[in-house]
Structures are given as structure tokens and as C-alpha cells.
């Protein structure tokens, strides 16, 4: 509920969309004259920066090759660029609403392009593991209320998700964990001693690149197999430590394994995530155990959900044959760029020119790029068409998914002069549809192709 008091507005139960925790208990104090958030009660250090720094910047709403143009002109140029490309790619989507993500999938479908999200360079390998192994999971509410053994593997939530401990999993007091941390055992597995270490009752530091071996050893111990004592030489973790953890896992009441990029971005990738998921499955013969990837961006989980319910696959999807195909390593964006396949790119709320491998960035510089972003980034700088858009959760409403797949509706704080992602993408979609139709009729397409082109998405 928003209370008006002169030029200060208070927005209660607003949502922070900086990280995958998607905390929806913010109390925002908004200076409507200055159009900025002056206080974000309950926010963590990352959330405070997110709210404080998203102000209305003096910038054009749309540019073509660095020159200011009208939004309509930019939409026309973007649509023409995408329709005339042979291998157009769409990428990003983890920092925008589900409503905008849906429009992006429709555009990709119309132009027979490729769609991928930041999941492919985040928990994409875990997505592969989910398909191969399965996922025993829960909501974060269940973790808060029930978990008495909490394991973080390959992540540093104290710095990446600061409220994960207090709001959901460690110090949070729940129905069956009324004393918070006193009712739980917390284990941290990481190759470094990070700022998350002080919260851990047990700190395990394997050798780098040995997560799979440690997880597989735990599977063996859980099943009652004997392990050689030289496991420590191989993994850096003493047998006694592993045996103790295996017993704790089997004997807890409700266990949870949160896992991060330390598994997916290192040697082994989806095998690491798969080993962790398999261990979780094994443990359900003894107790209740769940696993959950700790997701980074505010709506990366929504991107997985939207792309899945629209195409059947979570990321790395290609429409070039007129139906969706899923092939990580071919249709994922690092690959479509590094292999030189893509000849145009629609980048939404993401900055691959900053965070991708050098070879992929080099290719991005050589093709027409269309960007939608709230700020200047390395990718907007190299764009052919650049849209400045409103910030989701601060200027616009919409739906986002928390990392445990719980959808949350956003409460905006103040208006932006810039259009939101959904509005821009809907306009591009409509124009793309018109151009695709015209192309089909001009090219003497078959009746079936005409029907496919006419059917609105």
C-alpha cells in the first residue's frame, strides 16, 4: 500500500529484484520531486545500492548508432534488423519481468531465431543436470520452517545474497526451528574461506576442481561403502570429515543443499550439479533432503519458467526450423557468438560485452546489436539500436520468480519517462509480425507458411 504525504511516498512490501532472493518486505521511501528512493528499509547492502542508484538519468530514450532518435524510429530499425538477419539471437532476460520475457520469446519465434538467457552462463549446467537426474526441491519457506541441516556448496551468499541467511535459511526462525540458527547445523563447502565462513559450523575446503569427487565420495559413504583413506590426498578433505558429514546428512530431519557457481563454472560443470542432485536423491531413502540452486539475477528463475512454458526448454532454444529445438553448446549464446553464427543480436537487460569470453565479445562488435537496458553498459555502447528502459520493480510492475520458483508481483515506487521492456518488446513484436507477413506474401510462401506467419502469438 502506498501512502501519500506531500512529496514523500512510502511503498510497503515492495520487492528488491537485484538478486534471486527477491525479498518482498521492502519499505521504500520515495522522493517524488527528485524521483529517487531515499531509504530502503530491510534492504541488504546490495539492495540499498540497487534502490539508491536507479534514478532517472538524463539520456535519450532511443539511439541509432549513437544518435538520438524517436522510440518509433528505433523500433522500426530494430524490427528491420531482426527480420533481415539469417541467424538472429535474443539473449539476456534475467533482469526484466516475465511479461517482457514472454514478448521476447514471441519475437524469436516469428523471426525463426535463437533465444537464450543468462542461465546458460549461470546455472545452465544445473538445468542439464535437472533433466538428467531430477530435482528434489522445496520453497524457501519450507527451508525456513523445517531445515535443521543447511549446506552451502560452491557459493558465498554473505556477499552475493546477503539476506539468504537471515530471511530464509540460517538465522531465520521458523515453525519447527523456533531458535533459528541454534536449531540448525550449517556447513559451507568452498575452495576459499569467504565472508560466509563465520556462519558455518563446519567449513570444508576441497581442492579446486574436486567437487565431483567429494560429492561422489559422499554418495558412497551414504550408501555404506568403504572409502580409501587416501581420499584426502585426492580431494583435500579428510575421510573423517566426509564420514561425519554423511552421517549428519542421513540423520537430519530436513536437509537442504544450496549450490552455486562453484559447481557450474568449474571443470565438470553439469556433472558436478548432477552429482549433488544424485546425492540428494540418495538421501531421501533416509530422511527428507532437498537441493536448490542459488540464483543470481532477480528474475533469472522467471526466464527459465517463461522460456520453458513457451518452448518446452529452459534456455538455448532455436526456432530456425519453425519449431523449438534445444541444444546447449550450439544454441547457447557464448557458442552462437564465438562460433560466428549470429548475424544480429537482441540483448535485453544484460551485458555480455562485459562478462562474456573475449572471442564472443569480438563477434558481438561485428554484428548489429539491439539493446534494452536501464543504464549505459559495455553492450549498449556497441549497439546499433539502443533503448533506455524503465527499471523493473522500481518504475514498473510485473511478475518475477524467486529462486525457489515462487512468483511475486512487483510494486513500483515512481514513474519513469522511459518505456518499460514489455512495451518496447511488444512494439517490436508487432512490427516484426507485419514484416514477416509481408515477406511471406511477397515471396509466394506456401499456404501453410502463410498460416504460420499470420497466427498471432
Amino acid at each position, binding site marked *: 500500500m502506498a501512502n501519500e504525504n506531500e512529496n514523500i511516498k512510502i511503498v510497503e512490501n515492495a520487492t528488491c529484484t*537485484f538478486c534471486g532472493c527477491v525479498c518482498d518486505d521492502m519499505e521504500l521511501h520515495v522522493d517524488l520531486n527528485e524521483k529517487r528512493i531515499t531509504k530502503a528499509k530491510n534492504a541488504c*547492502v*546490495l539492495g*540499498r*545500492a*540497487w534502490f*539508491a*542508484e*536507479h534514478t532517472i538519468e538524463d539520456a535519450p530514450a532511443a539511439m541509432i548508432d549513437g544518435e538520438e532518435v524517436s522510440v518509433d524510429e528505433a523500433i522500426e530499425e530494430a524490427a528491420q534488423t531482426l527480420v533481415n538477419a539469417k541467424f538472429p539471437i535474443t539473449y539476456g532476460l534475467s533482469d526484466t519481468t516475465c511479461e517482457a520475457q514472454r514478448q521476447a520469446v514471441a519475437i524469436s519465434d516469428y523471426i525463426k531465431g535463437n533465444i*537464450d538467457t543468462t542461465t*546458460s*552462463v549461470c546455472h*545452465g*549446467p544445473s538445468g*542439464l543436470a535437472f533433466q538428467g537426474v531430477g530435482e528434489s526441491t522445496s520453497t524457501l519457506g519450507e527451508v525456513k520452517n523445517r531445515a535443521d541441516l543447511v549446506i552451502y556448496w560452491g557459493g*558465498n551468499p554473505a*556477499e*552475493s545474497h*546477503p539476506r539468504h541467511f537471515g530471511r530464509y535459511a540460517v538465522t531465520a526462525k521458523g515453525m519447527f526451528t523456533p531458535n533459528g540458527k541454534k536449531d540448525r547445523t550449517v556447513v559451507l563447502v568452498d*575452495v*576459499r*574461506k569467504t*565472508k560466509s565462513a563465520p556462519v558455518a559450523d563446519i567449513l570444508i*575446503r576441497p581442492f*579446486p*576442481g574436486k567437487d565431483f569427487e567429494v560429492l561422489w565420495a559422499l554418495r558412497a559413504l551414504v550408501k555404506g561403502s568403504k572409502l580409501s583413506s587416501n581420499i584426502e590426498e585426492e580431494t583435500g578433505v579428510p575421510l573423517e570429515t566426509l564420514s561425519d558429514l554423511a552421517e549428519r546428512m542421513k540423520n537430519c530431519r530436513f536437509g537442504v543443499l544450496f549450490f552455486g*557457481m*562453484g559447481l*557450474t*563454472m*568449474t*571443470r565438470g*560443470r*553439469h556433472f558436478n550439479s548432477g552429482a549433488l542432485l544424485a546425492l540428494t536423491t540418495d538421501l531421501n531413502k533416509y530422511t527428507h533432503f532437498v537441493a536448490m540452486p542459488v540464483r*543470481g539475477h532477480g528474475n533469472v528463475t522467471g526466464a527459465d519458467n517463461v522460456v520453458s512454458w513457451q518452448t518446452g526448454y529452459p*534456455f*538455448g532454444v532455436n526456432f530456425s526450423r519453425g519449431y523449438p529445438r534445444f541444444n*546447449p*553448446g550450439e544454441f*547457447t*549464446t*557464448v*557458442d552462437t557468438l*564465438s562460433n560466428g553464427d549470429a548475424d544480429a543480436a537482441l540483448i535485453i537487460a544484460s*551485458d555480455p560485452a*562485459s*562478462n*562474456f*569470453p*573475449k*572471442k*564472443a*565479445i569480438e563477434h558481438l562488435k561485428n554484428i548489429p546489436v539491439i539493446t534494452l537496458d536501464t*543504464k*549505459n*553498459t*559495455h553492450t549498449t555502447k556497441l549497439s546499433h539500436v539502443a533503448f533506455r528502459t524503465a527499471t523493473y520493480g522500481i518504475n514498473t510492475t510485473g511478475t518475477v520468480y524467486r529462486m525457489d520458483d515462487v512468483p511475486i508481483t512487483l510494486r513500483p515506487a515512481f514513474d519513469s519517462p522511459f518505456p518499460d521492456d514489455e512495451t518496447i518488446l511488444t512494439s517490436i513484436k508487432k512490427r516484426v509480425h507485419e514484416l514477416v507477413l509481408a515477406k511471406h506474401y511477397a515471396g509466394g510462401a506456401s499456404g501453410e507458411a502463410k498460416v504460420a506467419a499470420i497466427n498471432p502469438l
Partner: protein
Amino acid sequence: MADKMMLIPGRTSKQGTSLNQGKFKDEYKEVTSTLEMNKDDMDKRGLVDGDKVRMWNEIGETIVSCIGKKTEDLSAGLLFIPYGPPSSQLMASDTAGTGMPLSKHMMVEIEKVK
């Protein structure tokens, strides 16, 4: 010295807050150009906190400043840097059929910039 070391780029609080201020602001540039290194490894190379080092592999190179960490926090042979444009210069594009480059497992070499 030509010993290979393992570079682990990752998220930090400062990287996250400066990211919100803007990627072209000095703070973000400084945060993503500061390398954490084991103190003993630094001593072996004659490095002190704040020294500039060239870090390279077969993909590319970048110049960053380094700060020391105790062995109990960061083992010998490991390097940590808040991820950003400098670390991307060293990232290989091969995804081994997964879509994911080895973003936290980069073998690099280091030398002091004189």
C-alpha cells in the same frame, strides 16, 4: 616466474554495489581490477599490496593490482578477482557442449609490471 596459477572470478559485495553505480565509474573499475593473491605467492614474486601485475594466458592478458591474503583464506596457487571486463579478457570460449565457459577455473601466469 612462469608458474601457472588458478584464477577464480566471483561476486563480492563491493562489486555488486559499484555495479549499481555504473560500470564506467571509477569504483567499479577499481573493484574489478583488484586481484587477491596468497601472501606467500606474492612474497615469492617480490610483490607488495597495490603492485600492478600482468596476468595472461593463451586467450589474452590484463593488468590489475594485487592485494595479499593469508593462506588460511586463500590457498597458495589460487587467485581471486571480482568478475568483470578484466577477467573476461582471460576467459576461453569453449563450452564443451554445455553453453558454459570455464569462468572460475582459468589457468593464468603472472608477472610484476615494472
